[in-house]
């Protein structure tokens, strides 16, 4: 009987101390600020607020802009790793929402669109945070436009990542030749799934329930 009690106690302690896989969520959102897409930022703010409302304690969230060279911490508009205490989480969320609002009001359009650089930054950020679920939201028309000299022909390791393209608007040229639009989507799907990531597109922003 004593042995059984000892074994049970050890098993209980082991289960308490065992290294379990994290159950928190990490979200990195890329905001395209190039050209006319800058006008869509109000919608992006709506999505960010929705995402904030869905995140909980110990989750991580970062919002970064896509500009000429997006592989940089300087492009991060707001970031937070939520505290363990509910009151602190609420405070962090309010500050985050204020920072995003401020950015949306003052953001200047960028001449180029470096989505791959932003994606690399997102992967780096989320891997560093070590969250259980990793989601990258790309709020863009997915039309990459790199400045001369920037090398982005890189396979981004996306195994374990969910990449969701939001509000992928059709460009004027897409209307002329829809194959361009479809080809763009297909190209990004290929890039994501090639390295083990999951790809998804959400254009209807009223149906964000399944976003996270």
């Amino acid at each position: 009987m004593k042995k059984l009690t000892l074994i049970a106690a050890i098993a209980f302690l082991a289960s308490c101390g065992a290294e379990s896989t994290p159950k928190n969520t990490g979200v990195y959102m890329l905001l395209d600020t190039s050209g006319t897409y800058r006008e869509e930022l109000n919608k992006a703010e709506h999505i960010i607020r929705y995402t904030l409302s869905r995140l909980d304690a110990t989750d991580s969230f970062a919002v970064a802009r896509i500009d000429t060279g997006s592989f940089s911490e300087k492009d991060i508009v707001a970031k937070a790793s939520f505290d363990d205490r509910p009151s602190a989480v609420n405070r962090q969320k309010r500050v985050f929402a204020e920072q995003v609002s401020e950015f949306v009001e003052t953001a200047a359009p960028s001449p180029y669109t470096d989505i791959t650089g932003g994606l690399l930054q997102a992967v780096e950020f989320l891997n560093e945070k070590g969250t259980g679920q990793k989601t990258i939201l790309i709020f863009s028309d997915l039309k990459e436009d790199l400045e001369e000299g920037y090398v982005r022909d890189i396979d981004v390791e996306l195994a374990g990542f969910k990449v969701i393209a939001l509000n992928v608007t059709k460009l004027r040229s897409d209307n002329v030749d829809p194959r361009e639009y479809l080809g763009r989507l297909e190209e990004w799907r290929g890039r994501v799934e090639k390295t083990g990531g999951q790809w998804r597109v959400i254009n209807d922003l009223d149906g964000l329930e399944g976003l996270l």
Partner: protein
Amino acid sequence: MSFMLGITPWPVASALLWIILIVAALYLVRGTAHKTIQAAAQGLHRSFKVASRALSRSEKNLEARNRDVLLAAGREAKERIIEREFDRINETVRKDLANYSALHRSLSESIGRIEKDHQEAVDVPPDPPGWVKAVESVAEMDAKEGRAHVGSILSDIHKSLLRAHKEAMAAYHAASAKRHKLLRHMRPDWRRIQQTLTQVGKNVDSLLSRSVTIDRLMQEYEDIVRSHDRAVSVLSSSSLVNFFVSAFVLCIAIGGATINFSLIARPMAEMVGGTSLIGDFRTADIAALVIILVEISMGLFLMESLRITRLFPVIGALPDKTRVRMIWITFSILFLLASVEAGLAYMREVLLHDELATSALLRGDGAAAATATGEYLWITTAAQMGMGFILPFALTFVAIPLETFVHSLRTVVGLLAISIIRALSLALRLLGNLSLYLGLLLKQVYDIPLFVPLWLEERIAAAADSHRRDDSLGRVG
């Protein structure tokens, strides 16, 4: 099958041959087969019967044990009630009759005072008028000495007499007034005596009614001690009633504990973190549960120390000084935990408002964010704090139904076990009888394919019988 049908060139003949062979074989081993079936059936019957008897014995043992438990519990409960009644009588006697000497003295004093006042209040008749004797003397003086100035003397005497009469009347009036005053003074004494005697009467009546109750309780106690069936029956039914009532109250208490849990589990996340887990459970939930369990434990100890319940004999047997110390310690811990709960309930409300305001802000609903901290929300805050403070004390009283539940559970479990054993015993007895009849049935079934040889056997036996009868008749003739 083809082999069996191929022993002759004609399958039908082969089949017939097989049937004849099998029937013949079955007929030859019929006696042995019947004996085997009979033996198996008897064996099963006996086994089931033995098992049934064993269960019946266990049932009787259990019933006796249950009866003993019931009687012991009933005896203990009755002793407690009688002890309490005696305590009450002791208290009445100590409180009221201990003052009997003072009461007696008070009554004697009152009566003495009344007697004294009464004696003093006796109506003293006024003195006979002095002038009668004086007139007689003067008359005698006139007749003897023949004095001429009798009129003036009489006039003076008249005046003196009038004065004396006035004085006497005044003294009489004063004495009457004093007596009336004394009689008035006697009234409160009478009233006091009457009140005292009424109180004494009430006390005596109370003692008499308590003695009647004790007589009844003693009668019940004697019934229990003598293990009367009626006492067992009454105890058994009251035990069942106690079980269901206490179970119902415990369910209510569990509801209260659940509400208490929901009040403190959420704000507990502020203290121990909202995401850490112990096993599969949130640490905050476990911490809240532990607080509630500690409160219930403290409540149990408090009730034990107050000798309201007797779940832990060790606490009841502690010296009075230690017990009183324990009462204060447990009450203090309970009070502190209740205060902590009230604080947590307040924190819960604050967190809720904060969360509502944040959600409204994130939805872009500024108006809702403002109303989330409205002016009337203090009512819910106060209500939650009040509940957080009161529920731990309310849960203290769980000890009473818990004790009743634990005690009655023994009886109820015993009764249940007896019912189960009785049902099993009956089932085994039925199975025993069934196996016996199954043996008979099997024997009949065995004989069905042997109807031809059996019929022949019967015919031959009948023929042989009639032969024997004929032979015996021939010998007799």
